[in-house]
Structure formats: C-alpha cells, structure tokens
C-alpha cells in the first residue's frame, strides 16, 4: 500500500531539496495532532449552539474524566500499533484488572498497597504471554491477542461463575471521584499520565527503539536495538495500562462487570488511528492519540446530550469517525505541508 501512495511531486521535492525527511515527518505529525486538538476545542465551543448547557467548564471536566479511560487504554494500544502489532486483548485484560481488584482487594482492605500492584502484575503477565507467543512462537499479533482475549474472558467467566462480586477498592474510588486543588483527581491524573506517556514514547531511548522497530525490524536489529525485549515491552505495557484502566473503571462505577471492557476495544484502535498513527506501525505520536481519544469522547458526550434515539446517535458517531478519517488522511497533510514550505 505504501509504495502505491508515493506521488511524483513528493519524489521531485525530495530530489530538489536534499534530505528533508526528518523535518517533513515531524511537520506532518505535528499538523495532524494540532488539527485534532483544534477540532476538539471547536466541537466543545460549537456545542453551545446546540444546547446552552454544553460547552461549559463542567462539560469539559466530564469529557476529560470519561476520556481518561480511553486515553490510558489507547496509550498501550498505540505502543503496540507503533511496533506494527495490534492488541485485541485490551478489553479482556481491563476486565481482568477490574474483577481481580474487586475480588482480591474489596472496599477497604489494608493489604491494598501490595494487592493492587499484584493485580497489575497479573495483567502484565497476560501481556507477556501474548508477547511470548508473538515473538517466540511467531503467531501473528492479531491472532495471538485475539486468542488471549477469548481465553482470559472465559477464565474470568469461570472464576466469577458468571456473577462478579465485591466492591471497588478505596484507592480506585479516590482516584476517580476525589478532588485535589479544586480540580477532579482524574483530570490531574490524566495530565500526569499524558506527560509521562509523551516522555516515554517521544523522549526516551525506549520510545525511539519502538519507532525504529515499527519502521523496519531488520534495520533496528542491525543498528543495535534490543529487538526481542523491545517487541515484548509494548504488550506488557499495554496489558498493565489496560489493567489500570480496569481499576479506574471499577473506581468510577463502584463495581466490576464481566463486559465492562468490551465497549473500549474499537475506540482504542480508532483513537490511535484518528490521532494520525499508521496502523502499519512506525508512525504516530502519543499526543495525537490523546487528541483522538478526547475527540471521540467529546463526540460521544455531545451526541448523547442532543437526546436523539440510540440508533441515530450511533449512525452520527460512525459518520463522524468516517469524516475524521477522511479529513485526517496522511496524503492531505503531506500536501498541506508541502504548500507551507
């Protein structure tokens, strides 16, 4: 697909001005990230015209709180996609995190300080198993994580006998419902998470390794990147962050259900793709993904505030995802970028 997209003008430009690869790449990514951010703000402000209750600061807070689940989930999904894979086990692992937290820890267990990390460790192990199958058994990521997802869901079904019990740990409730410095705790957490995620993906050596591997595994190997470890890492991070999202979901809704992660699989992929990443790997930034996740959540809250029936809301949501995809096409930004230079 990639070779077919090569348009003659970009080749000509490349020959004219020498090596402009670095500047061209960063520019295209920044432009698409900015476009998503502007779209978000425009939507939030524009929503005032639909209903005066929309577009207020409290709505922004709602969007950020609801979007925090998707941001955490799509951070892991984004890393996996960056290395050319795909993680379909996110919903199952998120549910795993939530169910274990309610079953093992409960509301006010004094052992929460070591049990909660243990829950995340179990989730990380699931991610490691997926990665082991992908790296050593050479099972395609799509199939391995799909199989893992089916297996984990089925084990959870057996473990809970179909009806999950237990209450949300206090720590998770405090994270999602608490306030700090006059701001909701999840919003502060979101800011910290985005900052750390950005530092990891764009500013750390590990992040650069992941880009290298996503672009060309063999080249990365020759360049001395620890390829095996760096192919395992995204799946482990993805599973741990999914488990954490499960904790957040439990804290927000005060209980776990067996299907609580299901509705996040496709949005987690959509957020990454709308954020300007290539599904084939090697391109995209976390800030873009965050924009995609917030955009999707904004749309969701606006559409549900309009009060249309559920079916029509779904149609509009799909149409908007499609429009965003069409508007944010990479070729479009390459063309725009070439106009500005």
């Amino acid at each position, binding site marked *: 697909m990639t070779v077919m997209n090569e348009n003659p003008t970009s080749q000509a430009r490349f020959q004219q001005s020498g090596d402009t690869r670095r500047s061209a790449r960063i520019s295209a990514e920044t432009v698409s990230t900015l476009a998503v951010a502007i779209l978000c703000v425009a939507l939030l402000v524009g929503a005032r015209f639909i209903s005066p209750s929309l577009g207020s600061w409290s709505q922004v807070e709602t969007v950020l709180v609801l979007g925090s689940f998707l941001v955490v989930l799509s951070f892991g999904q984004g890393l996996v996609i960056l290395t050319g894979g795909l993680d379909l086990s996110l919903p199952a692992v998120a549910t795993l995190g939530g169910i274990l937290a309610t079953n093992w820890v409960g509301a006010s267990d004094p052992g929460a300080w070591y049990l909660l990390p243990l829950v995340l460790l179990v989730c990380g192990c699931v991610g490691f198993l997926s990665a082991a199958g992908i790296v050593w058994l050479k099972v395609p990521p799509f199939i391995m994580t799909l199989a893992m997802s089916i*297996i984990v869901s089925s084990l959870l079904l057996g473990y809970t006998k179909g009806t999950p019990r237990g209450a949300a740990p206090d720590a998770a409730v405090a994270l999602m419902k608490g306030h700090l410095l006059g701001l909701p705790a999840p919003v502060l957490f979101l800011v910290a998470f985005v900052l750390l995620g950005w530092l990891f993906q764009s500013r750390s050596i590990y992040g650069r390794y992941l880009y290298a591997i996503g672009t060309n595994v063999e080249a990365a190997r020759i360049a001395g990147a620890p390829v095996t470890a760096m192919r395992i890492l995204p799946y482990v991070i993805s599973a741990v962050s999914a488990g954490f999202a499960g904790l957040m979901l439990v804290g927000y809704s005060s209980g776990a259900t067996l299907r609580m992660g299901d509705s996040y699989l496709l949005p987690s992929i959509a957020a990454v793709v709308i954020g300007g990443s290539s599904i084939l790997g090697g391109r995209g930034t976390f800030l873009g993904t965050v924009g995609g996740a917030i955009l999707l959540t904004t749309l969701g809250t606006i559409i549900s505030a309009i009060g249309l029936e559920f079916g029509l809301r779904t149609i509009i949501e799909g149409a908007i995802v499609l429009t965003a995809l069409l508007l944010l096409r990479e070729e479009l930004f390459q063309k725009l970028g070439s106009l500005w230079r």
Partner: protein
Amino acid sequence: MSDIATTSAAALPAARSGPAPRHRLWRLTQGAGLILGLYVLLYALYAYQQPRALDAYAIAALMNNTAPLALAAAGQTLVVLSRGFDLSIAGVISLCNVVLAVYPLEGPGGALVSMLLCLAIGGAVGAVNGWLVAYLRLQSIAATLATMIICQGIALVILNAPGGYVSEWIADELTGRLWGAVPVSGLAVAAVVGLWLLVRRTDYGVALYAIGADEPAAALSGVNVRRTRFLTFVMAGMLYGLAGLMLSAQTATGNPNSGAPLLLLSFAAVALGGTSLSGGRGGLFASVMGAATLTLLQKVLFSSGVSSFYTGLFQGVVLIVAVVFSGLLTRIGERK
C-alpha cells in the same frame, strides 16, 4: 493482462519459498488438509461421545449452527487474502437480520426477495468499504470500523430491541433437509465454496492472490489493484448478507446486535483455516472448515460435560496451537 498476472502470481510464492516449493507438506498447509484432519478427529470424538451424532437430524443441526459463521468467515477470507481486515461484518449481519425480522416476506417468492435484499445490503456496504479503502486509500480496519458503526446504528433504528419474527418459510426451509437427508444450510455453504473454486481461477482470483502477496509487484504486472480490491469488498459484503440470512433462519427472530459475536470469531475461523493474515496465502474452503471446527468444538465440550464458561479457553488454545502448528509445517516444507 491475464498472462502477466498469472505468471507474477505463480512466481511470487516460488520466489518466497526457495527452489523446490511443491513439497507435499507445504501443499498440505496451503490447502485445507490440516484443518480437515482436525475436524474429522473432533467429529470422531463427538460421535464416540454421542452415538446419535451421525443421525441426519444431528448433522443438519450442526450444519445449521455452522452456516452463519462459515459464510461470514468465507467473506472475511476474501478481504484477508487481499491483505485487509473487514470489521463491517458485524454491522452487515445485524442489519440483514433486523430487516428480515421487521419486514418478513412469506413464501418461496418472499424468501427469494429476502435473499436478494440481503445480497443487496451486503453488496452496498461492501461497495462503500471498497470505495473508501481502494479509491480513497483509508486503512481498511479504520474504514470498515466506521461503516460497521453506521450499519449497527441503522439496525438499531429499524429495530431498537430484540424482537420480530423472520418469515416462516425462511425459518423452516433454510434450516430443514432436502429429501430428508441433505441439509439446506450445508448446501448453501457448499454452493458458495463451489462458486469460489470457479472464481479463483478467473483473472480476478489470480489478481486477488497477487495483490495480497506483493501489491507493488502485482501493480507492476498490470493488475488493476483498485478494481480488484473494490470487488473483493463487494463480494465479501454479499457473503455477510448470506450469513445474515442463514443466521436469521436459525434464530427466527431479530436482534440489532446479532452480528457482534461473529466479528472476532470470523477472524478466528480464518486463522484456524491457515489463511495468512498478511495476505496472499490461504483459501476460502479452509476458513469454512475453521468455522465448522470452532462450532463443533463447542458441541464436543458440551457433551464432555465441560462448563460452557470454559468454551473460550479451549477455542483460544486450539487457535494458538493450530496457528503454531501450521506455521511449523510451512517452515519444514520450505526448508526441504
């Protein structure tokens, strides 16, 4: 054009697998040998547990359960062969199911119109997918994700909660047996497989495998990549339409979410059949057998007294083992 396309498609796998590619093991994994063997083994186990499993009635019931997933997986296979993913499968099946349950048309004539309606719905959604992916060059996962959501929404608008009745003729005849022996649902799947065996020998079929294996090479050899990809999505959509028809015949009622469980299972069936998710290798019959194996596995586990909670555990493990094993066979075959 056909000559060039044929030679390029024939040359590609050969180049990939070394000087002596036509090894027996290698051919086994390309076809459906592995999955067919697994199915026969599983069926033997099933017949051992349940002696009545060989009755015409039991066979028909099994085929009725298999047909929707088999047809859905058949459509998915086409898209996967062209190195794409089609998530709209869930939306199309739900949409067809809902249309059949809300507007039941009685009699054989009504059933024919219903079938054409399903084919039209699937074909139309497939055409949109094809246009987005082939001509506007959107990533197939993303584009079909959007069309899936839209179809799901339309299905919800037509029927916002499970209900309605599928016409009696469809519910009875499509799940029945011809002459008391041949299950109609099995016949429908066999017809699709037969049709595919013809189609894969046409220019289109060769081109499909060629763009899946190596798109630039296929394009350079004169294959019309866009048209091939477009047609693939349209045909896949029509197969989902048929899957929706068979599902409606089986459940006899409407549910706006009826297609959702088939989304991931269709990929599982395709992978179990040994079709490469990176395109260009595999076949439609193997996926049909993959779907049949997944369905049969459920029955075997049920009759072995395993709690239905753990069906997924076994499905997942079988999926991983089958993929690892078929990969191993391919590698052994390529080495010799």
